[in-house]
């Protein structure tokens, strides 16, 4: 969009215009960082001020309190066992949701099945996760099927949508050629469709993950005896808001870690043969 001079070729003195642009870019970057820090200072400062003056300190503990409690919980060892419990739930539920969602997405290659599953995908996208959580619990009680049901139904839709979007963009000529050479349907799927869909599958994982993460915590609120959602409920019931916000904070830290570090690492590894899609 904007015309920028990326790099001045070596061995040539930059022209006045290029120097001006470089300077401009540097100034932009510095001001961006400055305003970003200003934003943090403002929000955190306001929060610290609000706790104790606008809202009661017990209701809205300031950031410093929360960081202190975070340290306590971290050293107490409760943090990792809770995350382990939540991650297990998420892992089981989301794996199943991903398999089902991807299978439905692949089936949309056939128009009949696309019509068949269309409404189910729309429902999965639009219905609130709470509805599934409560339905699962009321049917299965505290058994695992209940929360698996909830996680699968809330997340499979987004996986299917992304896979279906990839299906729409399938390389038609390759498929036609494969058909003309009588390549078996299964081989066709494995050799042409799935490699083409790989980036879409990754997008699906990322969205499904952030969605599944939230609904997992929601199901834990109702049925778990361990995990982040359970800790959040206990903290609010005991009116320990500092602990509550600490769990929220750790939720953020962990989600960020998983998304930015773990998933991106795998994405980079996975697409090493195809650098253009990670760009």
């Amino acid at each position: 969009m904007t015309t920028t001079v990326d790099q001045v070729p070596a061995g040539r003195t930059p022209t006045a215009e290029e120097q001006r642009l470089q300077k401009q870019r540097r100034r932009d970057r510095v001001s961006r960082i400055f305003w970003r820090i200003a934003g943090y200072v403002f929000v955190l400062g306001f929060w610290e001020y609000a706790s104790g003056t606008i809202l009661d300190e017990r209701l809205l503990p300031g950031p410093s309190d929360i960081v202190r409690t975070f340290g306590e919980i971290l050293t107490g060892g409760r943090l990792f066992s809770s995350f382990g419990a939540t991650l297990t739930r998420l892992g089981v539920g989301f794996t199943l949701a991903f398999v089902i969602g991807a299978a439905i997405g692949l089936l949309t290659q056939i128009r009949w099945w696309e019509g068949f599953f269309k409404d189910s995908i729309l429902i999965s996208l639009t219905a609130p996760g709470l509805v599934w959580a409560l339905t699962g619990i009321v049917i299965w009680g505290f058994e695992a099927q209940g929360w698996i049901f909830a996680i699968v139904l809330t997340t499979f839709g987004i996986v299917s949508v992304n896979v279906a979007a990839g299906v729409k963009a399938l390389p038609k000529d390759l498929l036609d050629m494969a058909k003309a050479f009588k390549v078996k349907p299964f081989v066709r799927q494995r050799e042409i469709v799935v490699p083409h869909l790989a980036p879409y599958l990754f997008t699906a994982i990322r969205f499904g993950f952030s969605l599944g993460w939230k609904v997992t915590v929601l199901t834990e609120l109702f049925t778990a005896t361990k995990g982040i959602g359970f800790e959040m409920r206990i903290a609010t019931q005991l009116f320990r808001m500092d602990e509550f916000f600490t769990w929220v904070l750790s939720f953020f830290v962990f989600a960020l870690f998983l998304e930015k570090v773990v998933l991106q690492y795998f994405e980079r590894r996975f697409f090493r043969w195809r650098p253009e899609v990670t760009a």
Partner: protein
Amino acid sequence: MTATAAAPKVGKPTGSKKDGKVMRFLRSPSFARILFPFAFLAVWWAVYYTIDSRIFPPPQQVLGFMWDEITLNSLLRYGSVRNNVYGMFAISLMRLGIGFVIAMLLGTIIGLAMGLSKAVDAFFHDWIMAILAMPALVWALFLGLALGFGHVGPIIAVALTGLPFVVINVREGVRNTPKDLFDMARSFQVPRKRVIQHVLLPSLAPFMFAAMRYGFAIGWKGLVITEVFASDEGAGWTIKFWYDAHRAHGVIGYALFFILFALLLERTIFERLERRTFKWRPKLSGIDVVESALDTDSQDEKDFLILERSRAKFEALDGDGSEKPRG
């Protein structure tokens, strides 16, 4: 397109084109779409007869319950006369509307500022993303404790869950306004008011629409959760009521009400509104808009926009998919 469509189909009997009307209908995707609810009911029946559970209701019980609720024959009036299914959904809808208007106003202001100024963008960016990533559950629990039961908590929850969607979309819209049109307007000395009216607003409109649509859907989800924890009326509270009463048919019945409600909202209101708003601009549907916006810098926003695009594409499958044979 036509050349590929005419490519010989290997492995299929050539006589399949002579099928009667019935067969063609059975093979059409629209028949499959009609078939889906019946298949769903069949699976439900099968599950009902296979699992050994005293609380899992058969479909007819749930449908009967829903019918009773709709025709106001419900055994329970939830305390007072207006507290029936219509009343509860009306209360929720009102909260959703108010919260959503707040989200739209605030989000448009912040989004405009973020789109126009890089400093403001840097100032707010991370916090908007944090609100976007926050589970509605957190708002629900906190607002329930802070404000108690009533209208204020759910309204704030709707505003907070909807806000980031509005901000991101409006900001994208501002960034995507055609620069040359502004330049031209300036060189012809068009007054600012007319520039806003004829250049900025029309180019913002599709983005505002996307913001409305997703903000509304997300706000609804946030509202329902908040009503469970921070309210004693409303649709979310009602499903919790049946859950507490441990009536599976009530919970499932209300779950179906929720689904019908969401589908109704999407299908009737938003689709019609969209068609009407963009009649003057037939080619530029939501898909192209979002697609053109994909050259943003941050990965988060890119993800978000891909999500919208893929969803918009998915919804467009009905319309243009018919002439492209696949499979």
